[in-house]
């Protein structure tokens, strides 16, 4: 083994007006709460988009 990386995976269910609005919410949480931008990086991935009537 030459390298190991340990990360944190957070799955969120977000209700929002479309993907852009959902990303905005998640991005803010990632920046202010889930990561410290001085020492950590994060990536956001949409797993499943469901239209709510």
């Amino acid at each position, binding site marked *: 083994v030459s390298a190991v990386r340990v990360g944190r995976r957070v799955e969120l269910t977000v209700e929002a007006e479309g993907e852009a609005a959902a990303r905005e919410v998640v991005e803010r949480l990632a920046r202010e709460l889930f990561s410290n931008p*001085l*020492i950590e990086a994060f990536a956001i991935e949409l797993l499943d988009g469901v239209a709510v009537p």
Partner: protein
Amino acid sequence: VTRIGVVVFPGSNCDLDTLRGLELAGAEAVPLWHEQGSVDGCAAVVLPGGFAYGDYLRAGVIARFSPVMRAISAFAADGGLVLGICNGFQVIAEAGLVPGALLRNRGLRFLGRDVRIVAERLDTPFTSLVGERRPLQMPIAHGEGCYFADDETLDELERDGQVLFRYVHADGNPAAADGDPANPNGSLRAIAGVLNARGNVAGLMPHPERAADRLLGSDDGLPILRSLVEAAARAEREPALAAIR
């Protein structure tokens, strides 16, 4: 008598020691519950050690969103004196009140032992009564105390006199950044404490309140607490002057 507040988060565990240390230093020390939205007329605020909100997610991050922290951020923005010790340092770093971040100790283990630090500046509200650049002996007790900032920020901190404390050997010689038992958490440039740019907010990992009485093996922490009490008393008397600082 000057009133100084000590924040109590769920999980704070040095609050009583800090209240006692401040009383020994001549203040009227009062607890500030995390749910209150004001600093209650205190002339200075200390954030004590512990594990605020269990240190879930990352040390200090959840505490940052508490009502009392919003009040403390506003207080600091007005020039109010704020000192963060250990977990309190982690909280104010997460809140962006001081630069940098505290990473896992270089050796990945929790460390509880005495260290020695020197005050790099003797003209601040937190060190004015330290008197000289001599090694101060006091304990550390933390798992995440490795001070980190990028090189550019570290250069700025050194240039602008924002490095407040450094880890040193018993003879006062500076500790190395890596692999030096005198800097057991591996802090970059052996930084043990920093100031904000304005000079009214400071954080350090070692515990001055646990070295505030000879009975505890050292009273080298007392001059730090006494400096804060004196500066707070001055701020009370001359609020306009304090705001300029």
